[in-house]
């Protein structure tokens, strides 16, 4: 039940082992986000991730607590990187452990959807024509809003 904000690559095998080792749940879901080599039709060379450290920690810890309350999670973990990330590098890793699969999968989706719009990170893409800030997507706001309306799983 913890958050890591880090510049270093995410050691997915180690994170998974630590997540499950501490909990005896029957269902584990993970999500990993990687730097894409394109956005729409534009090539991307690397991603710079700026963040607001104190607030990011507060928001993500609160998000984990909400996921426990809402989905009865036995364990969870959120790892988010910052700094300069080349294409194919990990950006974010989220893991959820629960008694049943519906809870684990929904919790993972809830954490990712909420993190996208509520955690203070900002992406800047480096492309062939220079760097530019990534705009927030209306679609992300819509995915986030579903969790306000629904009662969970």
């Amino acid at each position: 039940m913890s958050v890591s904000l880090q510049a270093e690559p995410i050691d997915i095998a180690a994170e998974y082992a630590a997540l499950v080792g501490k909990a005896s749940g029957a269902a584990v879901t993970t999500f990993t986000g990687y730097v894409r080599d394109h956005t729409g039709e534009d090539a991307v060379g690397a991603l710079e991730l700026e963040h607001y450290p104190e607030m990011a920690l507060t928001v993500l810890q609160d998000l984990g607590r909400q996921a426990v309350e809402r989905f009865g999670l036995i364990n969870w973990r959120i790892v988010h990187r910052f700094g300069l990330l080349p294409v194919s590098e990990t950006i974010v890793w989220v893991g959820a452990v629960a008694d049943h699969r519906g809870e684990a999968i929904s919790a993972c989706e809830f954490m990712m959807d909420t993190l996208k719009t509520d955690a203070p990170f900002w992406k800047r893409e480096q492309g062939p024509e220079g760097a530019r800030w990534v705009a927030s997507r209306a679609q992300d706001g819509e995915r986030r809003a579903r969790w306000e309306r629904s009662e969970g799983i």
Partner: protein
Amino acid sequence: MSITIKLFASLREALGEAELQLELGALPPAEVVDGAIRVDSIKAVLSARGADWSDAINQPNLVHALNHKVVYLDALVKDGDELALFPPMTGG
């Protein structure tokens, strides 16, 4: 009364500053009620710094976080608080 202002991402870049201390002694006393000032009054103070500030601070969709929590324009800021201004978040 001193408030820490933090700026992030495109806002930080446009204004060339990441953090500043705002001393509110210069503000019309009417804005300060019971030692607190609204977020929109602080934005008005920052906007008065020049055209680039006015443009950046008044852009639509700007997010305001008071002591690490997102707030609306009517939130009350007190001495020692930290107010962060930034564009919509794009993490994950």
